[in-house]
């Protein structure tokens, strides 16, 4: 189990855009103006916790500047938190533990002039492999990712898609226990997305724990067992993909009735959309707090002639918008 526990991290403004490691400006949220902070201090992480169990894929979601990259860098030991800790199997992570992590930074990172095979083998050795193990594993991964023909080419001569595959090989070559991937899907074509998805699924099948950040929420929904949504360095929603946000997930009901529900439905239910279609009313109703779809269906059946009721599945995108915009 890989756990980030109660991480806090601030950057000075000058360092913030740089410290968050991005060309994007305005990374890290400005501290709430309580007067307790100097105005130049940016809070990147504000008590963030998350955990990744072996065999699970965790999606790490948040708006730009929410602190995802900072959290991942701290997990890898590339950055030190101001407070909080990174635990592996309940103990503070050691550098030996971290050699067993695989990492794919957001901006990618390979030596442009180094040959593909040399590069992957070098990284495998830095992760603790012997020269022979490194060579063998490099060959396997390049083969598996379909870039073995480019083994002796310089990285800069590869297409972007192939560079991404090499980058993935770099993260996987040492058979990591935990994979920490910052925006692994960004810039991939649909085939690349499939390759990446397959590789992540099989890594998890072999017992690895995976956490990746992404803005492609339908992908996160499809691939992940769990999702963590953060905003301004804090977790605002977390849980299994199917249960995320609890009641929020089934807060709307689509109904088919013989009469206009706006007339007979109790006022606690907000009818957001109603139209008559072939003599029947099709409507969408927002449920009040504490009322689930089943209770709402019973209530509607008591008050009117309910022909059909279907809970509306809220997509991760809807949840994301809701929790991040709050």
């Amino acid at each position, binding site marked *: 189990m890989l756990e980030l526990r109660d991480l806090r991290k601030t950057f000075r403004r000058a360092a913030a855009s740089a410290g968050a490691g991005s060309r994007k400006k305005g990374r890290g949220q400005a501290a709430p103006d309580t007067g307790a902070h100097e105005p130049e201090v940016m809070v990147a992480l504000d008590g963030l916790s998350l955990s990744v169990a072996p065999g699970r894929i965790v999606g790490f979601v948040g708006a730009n500047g929410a602190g995802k990259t900072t959290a991942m860098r701290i997990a890898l030991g590339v950055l030190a938190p101001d407070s909080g800790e990174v635990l592996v199997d309940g103990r503070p992570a050691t*550098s030996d533990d971290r050699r067993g992590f695989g990492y794919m930074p957001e901006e990618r990172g390979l030596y442009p002039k180094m040959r593909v095979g040399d590069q992957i083998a070098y990284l495998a050795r830095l992760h603790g492999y012997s020269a022979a193990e490194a060579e063998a594993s490099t060959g396997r991964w390049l083969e598996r990712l379909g870039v073995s023909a480019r083994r002796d080419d310089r990285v800069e001569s590869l297409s972007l898609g192939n560079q991404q595959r090499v980058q993935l090989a770099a993260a996987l070559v040492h058979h990591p*226990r935990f994979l920490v991937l910052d925006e692994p899907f960004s810039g991939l074509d649909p085939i690349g997305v499939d390759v990446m998805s397959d590789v992540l699924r099989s890594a998890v099948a072999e017992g690895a724990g995976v956490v990746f950040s992404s803005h492609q929420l339908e992908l996160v929904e499809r691939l992940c067992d769990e999702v963590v949504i953060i905003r301004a360095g804090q977790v605002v929603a977390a849980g299994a993909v199917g249960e995320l946000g609890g009641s929020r997930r089934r807060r709307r009901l689509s109904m088919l009735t013989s009469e206009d529900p706006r007339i007979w439905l109790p006022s606690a239910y907000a009818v957001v959309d109603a139209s008559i279609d072939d003599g029947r009313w099709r409507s969408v109703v927002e449920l009040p707090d504490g009322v689930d779809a089943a209770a709402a269906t019973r209530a509607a059946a008591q008050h009117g002639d309910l022909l059909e009721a279907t809970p509306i599945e809220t997509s991760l995108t809807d949840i994301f918008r809701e929790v991040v915009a709050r």
Partner: protein
Amino acid sequence: MSATRETAQTQPGAWRLVAAREFNERRKERSFYVSTLVTLGVLVVVLLLPKLFESGPPSVAFTGPEAGAVSETALQIAEASGFELSISVDPVTDPKQAVVDGNVDVVVTPDGLVVKESIDPGLQAVLDAAVRQVRTVDALTEAGLSQEQIQSALASGGAVPVLAVEPRDAEASQRQGFAFAATAILYGQLLGYGFWVASGVVEEKASRVVEVLLATIRPRQLLAGKVLGIGALGLVQLIAIAVVGIGIAVAIGSLTWSGALGAAILTSFAWFLLGFAFYAAGYAAGAARVSRQEDLQNVVTPLNLMAIGSFFGAILALNAGDSFWVQVVSVIPPFSALMQPSLIASGDATAWSVVLAVVLMLAAIVGMVSLAARVYERSVLRIGAPLSLKEALRD
């Protein structure tokens, strides 16, 4: 996964992997071959050119009734004073034409010396003495002295002994030449390989590979590996240049092998290592503060200026090695890195100044390396506008 844990124990220090990568990747780079070949090419040209234009000893023709006696005497005097000349046996009918045509350099006639433009003062002295001696012998013979009396009179005059109060040893000029070449090559190596460290640091930042690396090793290991790997390659190249250059110089007779020369060479290697440790750490610290190669020049300029200052200091040391200020500046780091080899090669170094220079340089290296490690650790992950040194050192 278990393999990772087991082999983590047995892998060599991570800095060794980094150093090996730096050494091997750069060894394969075209610029390494080009710089090696260019340096060797320049060296060969510098060594061989004087040989190509060397004309040998001046040739002298003698005319007139005393030609035989004067030429014989001139040869004796030349030999006694270590002056080389060759005597042209071709008959000279027109002395002026002969020197204009370049058949001979000097024609000695009963009326005087005929030359094209001017005459070497040493040669003039030899020929002048020879003509005077022949005339003296003639006069003494005419005055009725016997050959024995004349010989003893000439011999008692003998050569006037010279007492050199501050003798320049015989190797002085070759030492100067070696010292100059060593200084120029060391300067090139320090700047070239120091800059390689700098651009390597920026390459890792610009390509973001540094993030992947720092997920497995500490910044200090990365810095140490980079400096040591590139430094090792610089030393290998320096040794190759030295072996080829000195081999050629000794083979063609420009340089005579001696213990002093060997010591000067080893000293140069040692000072390369000391100087490189200082400059490479400085270049790495400067480079860690920027994220793009375009910004690199600004942050390395102070170091470049130091190196250029040291180079001129070393040139000054070649010509005025015993001056007070040269002696003082030559022990101050980092000037010592280029000035000490120059002083040692030219024979102007004193034992205490060598020891002091080494001690001060080691102290400066310790300071520079720890400063560099701090700056590097704090700024290597900060991508964006160049950081000021103050920002880089702040927690």
